[in-house]
């Protein structure tokens, strides 16, 4: 409970709230698009680099189990999401698959916020977790996009979408950063550490200010998307999160690590997935998938989800 509340007072969460407020009072505050893009590039490269450096210190065997579990969850989560949406939510195939693709992938900012949260709480999550983000980013989207194929045709656009995801800037920066960090190792990394580590949390504050403003824009759509999607955007992540904690701890993750793992598995992508879905499933309504992943699940995870996963992880792992 304590830890749940203390999360509210972190600069990161407060900046997110400030962004929402700024939009609600119709402020003319605007984060210039190039700044937003620059911070994106910086954050992705930074977590890649740090992850790569840590990976270079991790014994391969220790990393194998969590990696396998990640692939498994990348396949399972879009399918559960699809089934819930299609059979319970009565969404059509395109929309169900489109939303599912988002929940199969991962929100990097949620991941980062979870790292910041557990570190502030004194935990030390495994250093190779960013590698898992990179692993998780891809299969979920592809699995979800394959679903409509089981029902119909249009192979070509799936291929295009897969290409889009694999060569997308998030993957290039994340995987590229991992490789650079891995090859450089801790000593050579020192020279760039003040930039990529020292400035990280601060840059995140500005990023979340912008995310708050974008989220506020989506909140208006909340009514339109209906109560089912609202429930979906809260409870399916909790379900996926608990599954991730349980499997993650079996695979050897610490309590801190499994909390972060839960945050990433439960989160919905809103950068890589929308681009891919827009191209592969043009008939899926962006209002639905963006509002779900960005307007519902993202704020839920940032504010309540992560502390909840932490409590559950302590409870399962303790």
């Amino acid at each position, binding site marked *: 409970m304590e830890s749940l509340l203390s999360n509210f007072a972190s600069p990161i969460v407060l900046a997110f709230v400030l962004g929402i407020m700024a939009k609600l009072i119709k402020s003319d505050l605007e984060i210039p698009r190039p700044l937003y893009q620059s911070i994106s590039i910086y954050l992705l490269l930074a977590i890649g680099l740090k992850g790569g450096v840590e990976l270079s210190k991790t014994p391969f065997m220790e990393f194998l189990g969590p990696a396998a579990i990640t692939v498994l969850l990348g396949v399972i989560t879009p399918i559960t999401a699809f089934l819930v949406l299609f059979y319970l939510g009565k969404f059509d195939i395109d929309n169900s698959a489109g939303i599912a693709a988002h929940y199969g992938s991962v929100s990097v900012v949620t991941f980062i916020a979870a790292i910041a949260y557990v570190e502030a709480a004194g935990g030390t999550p495994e250093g190779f977790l960013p590698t898992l983000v990179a692993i998780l980013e891809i299969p979920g989207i592809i699995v979800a996009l394959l679903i409509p194929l089981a029902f119909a045709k249009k192979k070509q656009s799936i291929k295009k979408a897969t290409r889009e995801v694999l060569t997308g800037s998030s993957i290039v920066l994340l995987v590229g950063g991992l490789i650079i960090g891995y090859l450089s190792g801790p000593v050579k990394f020192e020279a760039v550490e003040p930039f990529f580590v020292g400035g990280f949390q601060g840059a995140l504050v500005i990023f979340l200010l912008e995310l708050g403003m974008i989220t506020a824009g*989506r909140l208006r759509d909340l009514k339109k998307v209906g109560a089912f999607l609202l429930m979906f955007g809260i409870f399916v992540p909790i379900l996926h999160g608990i599954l991730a904690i349980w499997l993650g701890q079996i695979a050897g993750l610490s309590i801190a690590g499994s909390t972060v793992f839960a945050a990433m598995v439960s989160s919905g992508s*809103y950068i890589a997935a929308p*681009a891919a879905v827009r*191209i592969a499933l043009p008939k899926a309504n*962006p209002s639905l998938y963006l509002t779900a992943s960005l307007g519902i699940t993202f704020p839920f995870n940032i504010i309540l989800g992560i502390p909840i996963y932490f409590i559950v992880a302590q409870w399962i792992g303790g």
Partner: protein
Amino acid sequence: MVTIITERYLKKDILEGIKELGAKGYTTSDVSGDGSRGIRATDFEGRNVKIETIVNKDTGNKILDFIADKYFEDYAVITYVYEVKVVRGDKYF
């Protein structure tokens, strides 16, 4: 002059398309906008893209058909045409 304003995601696709249909060149710029249908797929990318290409009548019509057929139903897109006089125009058609 054919002008197409659409979602950023489609830029690559459309440029390839119009080149195939015979456009010799194009100019793009970043714009924002709001339309009647209000499809918003690009919160993050933030903006639309404007594609302008000077072509002869024939190619122009082909481009219009191509855009209308392929993108009009599902994407935010507007296309319009007006006449321009190009200096040393032979180069471009």
